[in-house]
């Protein structure tokens, strides 16, 4: 811009768009906001679109959710069905169920929007988990992004409960069974369980209140919180500027990519339509939650193969594989068989939430990081992440033990025992194996840097020897493979101080040093090649 606003020679607005911008600027300071953001740089990598999938599926959920509220009656008043679906003629059901039937069979497009809504919910939570894993394995959660990590994690946690309260609303046989399970879990809470249950359901289960209560939680309270967190999450993405992978020209002090206007706007905006379009097509061809086949909820009826939506599967696994421990004493029952899974469920989630802070403490690394790690270069972190995922999947298997049993003709008892053992063993094995794989990959990187890439070309030397030709890497490739830092572990310090007096080592410091050795000790990283090693090998003999 060659002129500034206070220069009298500044020409006036010429077209309507500019006039609107001027008007808005005078009230909202639009130009100042646009100055730093209109050409903001966003780096490009396929994995950076995972968060976009979350954002867009959330947007689709809001759009389709508002449509559904126009037709849904959040009421448990009983009505007799007289709609077009013949098998349920004359059946008593709640208004919630009847109105969901109405949406599915009598509102044109209603079934489509219901199915888009439900599919989006599944995709939303799946995308959040995959996005969180991307952030985890690349170390994008490190300073200054720890708080944004927590925002994202909270969104995932709230998303699961929004999903649960949402699929409970139609009051069909399957979802009602899920609510009953929740009531049983609440009852297991020591001392106050029965009170919580009575207050939650307005009396004895199921009562006439929970659909209405879940409704306000599902459409107002949780989405409101989530929308706020989401905006904060995005503001922080803008404020911190996006992380980037190491590469030519990319440093901790810059961000390399394409500007918001036009490239990123077109790509990200277009991506919204791609996601929406794909979910619409899925909703057209794949039926989801066909409540008419399940019928209305009755507490004395159930269908086999009852499964929650997939993201609740790991809590289902916890409750299924836990032994039925009950301690009875002094006229009271401590229902550990249900209460322990109820408590482990948030703990599993918390383990991943607090990881960034534990890593920062163990490594003592308080610096800002904007260049992403390659997962192989942080074997302990990567191992922990894979262990966590392994635990998650083991519990998913536990949650579907009946499905696995019937589909694979296995004994349900055997599967349950397998999950019980794997709950403890599998994460350890996964951690160990992942760490080995990471170290192996580090060794391969080292070989690649020092000896180049195998070309597959076999050459015969004059004296008859066969050798494979190795091609040296470009400087950019060399840089990417060596750009990571390899910190030394933290020392506790000498046992005696400078006066020779024995020093009491702080136990916390000792723990930190031990964990730091685990992170950065010689068993956790392969020394990357030094410039000297490289010079020595490449300048000397043996290269072709």
């Amino acid at each position, binding site marked *: 811009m060659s002129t500034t606003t206070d220069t009298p020679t500044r020409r006036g607005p010429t077209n309507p768009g500019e006039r609107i911008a001027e008007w808005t600027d005078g009230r909202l300071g639009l130009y100042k906001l646009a100055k730093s953001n209109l050409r903001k740089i966003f780096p490009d990598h396929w994995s950076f679109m995972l968060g976009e999938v979350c954002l867009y599926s959330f947007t689709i959920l809001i759009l389709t959710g508002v449509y559904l509220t126009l037709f849904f009656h959040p009421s448990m008043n009983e009505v007799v069905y007289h709609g077009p679906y013949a098998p349920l003629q004359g059946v008593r059901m709640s208004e919630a169920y009847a109105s969901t039937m109405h949406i599915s069979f009598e509102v044109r497009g209603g079934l489509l929007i219901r199915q*888009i809504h439900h599919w989006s919910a599944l995709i939303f939570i799946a995308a959040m988990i995959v996005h969180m894993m991307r952030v985890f394995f690349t170390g994008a959660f490190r300073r200054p992004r720890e708080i944004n990590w927590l925002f994202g994690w909270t969104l995932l946690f709230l998303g699961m409960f929004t999903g649960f309260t949402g699929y409970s609303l139609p009051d069909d046989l399957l979802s009602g069974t899920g609510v009953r399970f929740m009531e049983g879990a609440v009852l297991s809470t020591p001392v106050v369980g029965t009170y919580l249950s009575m207050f939650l359901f307005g009396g004895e289960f199921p009562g006439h209140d929970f659909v209405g209560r879940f409704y306000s939680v599902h459409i107002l309270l949780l989405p409101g919180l989530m929308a706020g967190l989401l905006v904060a999450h995005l503001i922080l993405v803008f404020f911190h500027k996006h992380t980037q992978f190491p590469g030519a020209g990319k440093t901790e002090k810059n961000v390399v990519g394409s500007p918001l206007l036009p490239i990123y706007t077109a790509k990200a905006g277009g991506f919204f339509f791609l996601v929406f379009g794909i979910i619409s097509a899925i909703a057209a061809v794949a039926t989801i939650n066909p409540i008419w086949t399940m019928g209305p909820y009755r507490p004395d009826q*159930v269908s086999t193969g009852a499964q929650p939506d997939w993201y609740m599967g790991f809590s289902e696994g916890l409750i299924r594989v836990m032994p039925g421990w009950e301690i009875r004493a002094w006229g009271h029952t401590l229902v550990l068989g249900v209460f322990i899974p109820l408590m482990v469920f948030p703990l599993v989630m918390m383990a991943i939430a607090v990881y960034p802070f534990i890593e920062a403490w163990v490594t003592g690394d308080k610096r800002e990081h904007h260049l992403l790690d390659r997962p192989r270069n942080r074997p302990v972190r990567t191992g922990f992440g894979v262990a966590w995922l392994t635990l998650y999947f083991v519990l998913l298997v536990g949650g579907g033990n009946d499905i696995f049993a019937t589909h694979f003709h296995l004994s349900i008892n055997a599967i349950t025992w397998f999950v019980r053992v794997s709950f403890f063993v599998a994460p350890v094995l996964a951690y160990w194996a992942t760490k080995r794989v990471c170290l192996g990959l580090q060794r391969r990187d080292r070989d690649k840097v020092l000896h180049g890439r195998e070309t597959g070309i076999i050459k015969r030397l004059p004296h008859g020897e066969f050798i494979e030709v190795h091609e040296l890497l470009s400087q950019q490739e060399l840089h990417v493979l060596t750009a990571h830092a390899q910190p030394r572990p*933290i020392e506790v310090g000498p046992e005696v101080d400078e006066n020779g007096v024995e020093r009491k080592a702080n136990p916390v410091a000792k723990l930190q040093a031990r964990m730091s050795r685990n992170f950065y000790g010689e068993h956790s990283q392969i020394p990357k090649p030094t410039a000297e090693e490289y010079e020595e090998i490449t300048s000397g003999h043996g290269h072709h």
Partner: protein
Amino acid sequence: MSETGSHNDVSENLPSEHGARGGDVAVKSDPFANPGLPPHEHRRQDIDEKAARHSERVVAGLFMLSMLGTLGFIASFVVFPIDKIIYVFPIGHVSALNFSLGLTLGVALFAIGAGAVHWARTLMSDEEVADERHRVDADDELKENVRQQWITGAKESGFGRRKLIRNTMFGALTLVPLSGVVILRDLGPLPEKKLDHTLWTRGKVLVNTNTDKPLRPEDVIVGSLTFARPEGLEEAQEDFQEQIAKAALMIVRLKPEDIKDKRERDWAHEGIVAFSKICTHVGCPISLYEQQTHHVLCPCHQSTFDLSDGARVLFGPAGHPLPQLRISVNGDGNLIALGDFEEPVGPAFWERS
């Protein structure tokens, strides 16, 4: 540096600049140095106007496809009756309206996205640019400035000096949310003994849930599973759901000699036993009966109970046996209860003795 602080001071453990390779200029002596941004390579569209025009046509074509999709959506909405079912290979029989609306909407949306992305990738500048990053935290001067403002503000409030105000304010702020808690009291009634009792009383007739007829011993044959509810409990009743959630029964007939548990045999009528249908784990209705072994399985979490042995738990997460109802026959030859369950049915809870 003091020894006690040494474990916190890790600066010496962190790599120096050359390890982190943050430099942005290529240094000849360092083979691994960052070579800097690679030169921009032109795409075909950047140099060949014909290719660019082709891309333009593709993008415009996609946008036009989207328009067709929307028209198709409207047409489907008008044309297909909501109850029309069509066969689509390989999905099967589907609602014509849902299928056509979803696909046309999908095309209308996807084509916009594909057009926008293709436009960005082929016609908009693909030159990568670098932006500077700035530290998130403030410099010392700014920090000091804010600190002074804070101190001035705090001093002007007298917050630290006037302890009485401070303490009473904390007290008031701590108490005021209590109203918000108290007002939630009427969310539900107190539990009292509600969970301990069901509708079953002495002499109440067992009614077959499926036929709505009183159950007679001769209706219950060995190997079948029958569900029963108390007489007088009708679906149209206001509290039907709450009552059936506790009173639902599962009736099977065993050969008396097959019953291993003495109390179970005593509470049965000619080998007919009545157990609560509600699982003692988290309350699912149990519905899978294996007639050879007399095991019942809860389909939700697979707790398995042995109906020939006091419904003890054989496997799964349930913590205690299913409660049994004492039954007999009245003068009309109908099965009746001889009282309520002797323990609460369904999931365990704190007050359960």
